[in-house]
């Protein structure tokens, strides 16, 4: 037996309206509160950053002061050591070449190495400074210099 015919009808009260508008989540913080939060984080952070910058600048400046204060003491001793070695090199060369009457210390084929009428101080080249030491001294010195 066929069931009783029943016409489908809208729900009681009718269909609701079509939702066509975009749905936005509600903002958790208002604009004023966002700015307030930014200020609350930013102001202490920048203040602390400024404090730290000043502090470490002062620490660096103190260390720079200490280095500058000590520089004359180091330089004085260093100059004396340097001149002593130059003197020693010249004496050694005189001693080494005393049997060669055609050899003049500090000259090559009768001419001085530098045209130095003014009497300027010309620092000796590294190879000449280490001329009477063993073969790798100059290179070791150079490598040591490159480390720092």
């Amino acid at each position: 037996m066929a069931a009783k015919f029943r016409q489908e009808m809208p729900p009681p009260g009718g269909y609701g309206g079509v939702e066509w508008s975009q749905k936005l989540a509600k903002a958790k913080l208002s604009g004023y509160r966002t700015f307030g939060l930014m200020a609350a984080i930013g102001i202490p952070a920048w203040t602390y950053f400024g404090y730290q910058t000043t502090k470490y600048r002062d620490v660096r400046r103190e260390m720079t002061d200490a280095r500058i204060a000590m520089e004359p003491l180091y330089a004085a001793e260093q100059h004396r050591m340097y001149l002593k070695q130059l003197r020693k090199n010249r004496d050694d060369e005189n001693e080494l070449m005393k049997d060669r009457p055609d050899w003049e210390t500090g000259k090559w084929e009768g001419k001085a190495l530098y045209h130095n009428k003014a009497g300027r101080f010309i620092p000796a080249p590294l190879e000449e400074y280490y001329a009477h030491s063993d073969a790798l001294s100059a290179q070791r010195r150079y490598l040591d210099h490159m480390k720092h």
Partner: protein
Amino acid sequence: MAFTNAEWLPTYEELTVPEINMTSAPLRAGAHHFGKYCDEQCKEFMLCNSEQRDPRKCLNEGKEVTRCGIEFFNKVKDSCLEEFNQYWKCVDSNHEMNLSYCRSTQAVFDKCIFEKLGQERPELGYFSKTRVHKTVRPKPKPYSDLPMPAETPGPPKNIDDMETPAITKERRGGFLGIWN
């Protein structure tokens, strides 16, 4: 050797003075007070160096700096040895010898120096800033006062009059050309 026998180099006697036998940590620890104590000598020496650019001519100023340094550290040794040892051991205990980790020992050392030597620690940036120094040492003669060599003769007016210069040994160079 770059120096001939005619050129002046100081003798060993002139170059030998008592030197400071100290390691880096005590020198770093005493740096500010040393700089204040030997201010005049240090400035004189550095001015001499920058004016003369010649270590031979600033030997006496350098010796004065070393003598003053020895005098200062001897005074520290006599009066504030305990405090100084405590301070430099603290300075030595951090790897970069930074003075900022040792404020408490530094205060003790500064107090002792103030009581015994009557010297305060110089303010921050004292050595970094430009300081004026008055000296009686005469100003060195500038190199521009030296007599200049005679003027080089110019080229001839007519190039056909020019002789071909002879090829001398100096012009030719050695057997290996530019490598000689």
